[in-house]
């Protein structure tokens, strides 16, 4: 497993690529192909009534395409954790899911306020969730670690005071 955090001049960036997938992931991100099936949904700040619906739609779409239960579970868990992160921690944003023949690419973008320290946010148990979010059963500090555990690639670009982008790739 490769686990590295590279810091550029303006934004902090985090990559995790599961071993064996490096070449396929790099080819994908270099070429950025457009998928036949693309799903989009808005994520509203602190909306814990509808948040999660986008991830359920993605899971149901993959299920209709005949994807197996173990992959469905990994996609659903990674997607749901990321969707909830946007609702719980940001000023709102959106998710875009690109469904390819052999993989899914999920992209979450928000309107800030950014992650001050991505490496710290990756530590299991570390959380900045407020009381409202904790009362809902979130804020265990396991969101990003859970996404990492269930994905083949995780890419985060963020910084304090900036928007955050989280990308997830899962092969079928």
């Amino acid at each position, binding site marked *: 497993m490769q686990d590295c955090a590279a810091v550029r001049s303006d934004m902090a960036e985090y990559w995790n690529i599961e071993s064996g997938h490096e070449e396929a992931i790099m080819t994908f991100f270099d070429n950025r192909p457009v998928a036949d099936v693309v799903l989009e949904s808005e994520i509203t700040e602190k909306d*814990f*009534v509808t*948040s*999660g*619906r986008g*991830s*359920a739609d993605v*899971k149901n779409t993959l299920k209709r395409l005949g994807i197996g*239960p173990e992959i469905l*579970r990994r996609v*659903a*868990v990674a997607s*749901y*954790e990321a969707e*909830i992160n946007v609702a719980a921690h940001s000023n709102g944003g959106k998710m875009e899911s690109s469904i390819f023949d052999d993989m899914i690419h999920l992209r979450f973008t928000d309107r800030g306020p950014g992650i001050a320290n991505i490496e710290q946010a990756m530590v299991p148990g570390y959380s900045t969730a407020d009381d409202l979010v904790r009362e*809902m*059963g*979130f804020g*265990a*500090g*396991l*969101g990003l670690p*859970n996404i990492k*555990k269930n994905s083949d690639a995780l890419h985060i670009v963020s910084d304090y005071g900036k928007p955050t982008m989280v990308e997830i790739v899962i092969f079928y």
Partner: protein
Amino acid sequence: MTLNEIITLLEGEVLTPSPDLDAQIPCAFASDLISDILMCTKEPTLLLTGLTNTQVIRLSDMIDLSGIVFVRGKKPSQELIEMAEERNLLLMMTKMTMYRSSGLLYNAGLRSCKI
């Protein structure tokens, strides 16, 4: 273990219509943390929880839950119960605490779900 045995052990009240009392429940998990539940559930699982907000139903869209038991007398909203009915998801409540409920089920042979 059958659903009927679980209802009896927990002195439970079923909140959703026409439960299949003979349904086999293979395993269970208990937590109030959504990330824990997502991380630990890899097979059809009975969830014991004190969470009664609607995200617990969203959670059931992501993973395979055979039902939800609300512990320590917490009753979910009508909205939550309707969301469960739409999904054919069994809901039950018990006055017992999460610790006591888990202990009784475990002692009676209901195993922990695979994590």
